[in-house]
């Protein structure tokens, strides 16, 4: 980018996106547990309460189902709510509202009512928070017809996806990986909304396609670098949108590399990685020179100790090995 840039963090980029949205549209408000006076459990909304007040930065009681459903209702009532569920771990308590109401109402009502709602939540492991606070369930949400799911992994996307999601007439769920909030880097001073439908090739390569999203992007890019040191040119695709999936970008790359590895922090069985593998099977089977590989989390409740948590999650050496395996190395 030639435009002037500022040094910022993922957390600040999300905050800026929220501030921008609230200023742009009087119908937008943020609602969730401790988004206001506390400043957000990951400090994302810090300062916004003082700037916009309790109506538009609305603290809620511990009632995930209640306030998520209220967000759906408010969206039907003409508002543009941003519901923050602190983390995906607690979103299970709101899943009935999301699956049975947000995702169905437009179709079930014959197109009469739509739900222009955005739900943000933190996801993922890595902070030693143990079994009940380390889930990665993006794949579950990507299974639900009627909602859209995105996973911003870069500063640009953290800054730009929210407004685009708010302009979408249907419910959009945004997953923010907990390990990304502290990431810093340069961002165009005039950074704004970005399209959310297409995947992005974050690193070009010809030997193997590495497909990932969210918190796993940087591990995958690091693995790609290491592969490069060994003369393996890996192409890295950041899915960005988990529902719908951008098959074209994936298949174009696989047609070129003939090999693919999917990196996904979700538990392996029934992961989003499985869906990608199945789609490559269906759409690019004849182009494959090796079976598509998956690097996912071990199928265990994530343990507290660092060494066990690390062992449970996708790590660079394993990703490198999986990529090399597709090349018979």
């Amino acid at each position, binding site marked *: 980018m030639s435009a002037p840039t500022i040094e910022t963090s993922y957390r600040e980029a999300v905050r800026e996106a929220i501030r921008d949205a609230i200023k742009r549209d009087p119908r937008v*408000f943020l609602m969730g547990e401790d988004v206001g006076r506390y400043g957000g459990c990951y400090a994302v909304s810090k300062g916004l309460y003082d700037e916009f007040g309790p*109506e538009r930065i609305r603290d*809620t*009681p511990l*009632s995930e*189902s*209640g*306030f*998520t*459903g*209220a*967000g*759906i*209702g*408010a*969206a*039907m*009532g*003409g*508002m543009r*709510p941003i519901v923050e569920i602190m983390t995906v771990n607690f979103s299970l308590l709101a899943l*009935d*509202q999301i699956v*049975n*109401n947000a995702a169905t*109402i*437009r*179709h*079930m*009502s*014959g*197109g*009469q*009512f*739509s739900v222009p709602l955005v739900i943000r939540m933190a996801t993922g492991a890595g902070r030693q928070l143990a079994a009940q606070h380390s889930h990665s369930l993006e794949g579950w949400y990507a299974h639900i*017809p*009627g909602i*859209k799911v995105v996973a911003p992994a870069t500063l640009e996307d953290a800054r730009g996806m929210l407004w685009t999601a708010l302009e979408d*007439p*249907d419910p959009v769920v945004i997953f923010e990986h907990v390990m990304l909030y502290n990431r810093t880097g340069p961002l165009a001073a005039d950074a704004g909304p970005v399209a959310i439908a297409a995947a992005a090739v974050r690193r070009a390569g010809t030997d193997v396609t590495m497909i990932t999203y969210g918190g796993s992007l940087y591990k995958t890019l690091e693995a790609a670098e290491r592969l490069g040191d060994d003369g393996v040119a890996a192409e890295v695709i950041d899915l960005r949108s988990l529902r719908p999936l951008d098959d074209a970008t994936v298949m174009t790359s696989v047609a070129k590399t003939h090999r693919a590895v999917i990196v996904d922090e979700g538990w392996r069985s029934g992961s989003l990685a499985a869906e990608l593998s199945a789609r490559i099977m269906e759409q690019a089977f004849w182009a494959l020179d090796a079976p598509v590989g998956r690097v996912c989390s071990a199928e265990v409740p994530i343990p507290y100790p660092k060494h066990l948590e690390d062992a449970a999650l996708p790590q660079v050496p394993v990703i490198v090995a999986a990529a090399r395996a597709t090349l018979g190395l």
Partner: protein
Amino acid sequence: MSDAGTYVGDTKLHLNRDHALHLLREMLRIRRFEERCAELYTEEKIRGFLHLCIGEEAIAVGTMQCLTPDDAVLATYREHGHALARGLPMTTLMAEMYGKREGCSRGRGGSMHLFDAATRFYGGNAIVGGLLPLAIGLALADKMQGRARVTACFFGEGAAAEGEFHESLNLAALWQLPVLFVCENNLYAMGTALERSESETHIFHKAQSYRIESEAVDGMDVLAIEVAARRAVAAVRAGEGPRFLECLTYRFRAHSMFDAQLYRDKAEVEVWKQKCPVLRLGHWLEETGMLDRAERARIEAEIEGELEAAEAFAEGGTWEPVEDLARDVYTEQPA
């Protein structure tokens, strides 16, 4: 009939003959519509689940008198009465029961999912308790936008056991939202009697524990309901926060078409049938001379005509083409 004493304030106005006959007609429309639906179910014109509110018509009819077109309504899977009382045409309603494209939900929802934007009828929700957070949100939107509108939601006493009931009442009271909660306490949740599902069987006491002004009403007395609803709606509209009405009623029919009713004895059902809200208002109107045989016959004939027209409309309706299956899963956006 409720002792005249309860007819106070502006509700007197509504006790002129026209209004009284209107209430009777509205209840009869629901009664006849559902009786016919039961027949059409056995004829397999209507499929899926069919939940009849026969015996409970007074609640929907009495309450709807107090709402304006701007207000919003939400109900459960037992919502034919609410839809009719709210003003959905019987034609599109019947077409929906058939699953025809001309139905109020394009045929996609059927009996449990009646929707209508024109009357702000937000369904038709088949998850017990699931509509309550939606009502909170609709009311929150009104409050945030400074609109003096009321969101009325109807649900059974069974919903009071669900966590969503608790979370929703707290939010409504905490944020002083313009919601009218109407609990249709018909003593059973499918086959589970209230005393086997709640340690506190007065649902309105539960609402009070959230500091919501609440009262219990005779759910078989359409006038008592209208009186209570008018008071409650006025307060809600005036910005005094949510109100809660517990209407004591009874389901004359089975829970759905698949219910052997092993859980209650016929005698109990008979006792309640004596309290039928339609009979009750009818008798009272005859006693007070507001209604005579001829008038009654005229009303019934009128309703039969409406019903036949609705059925003809449904029969004449079309099936949504299979190609449109995925239409409106998402909003079509200009490319």
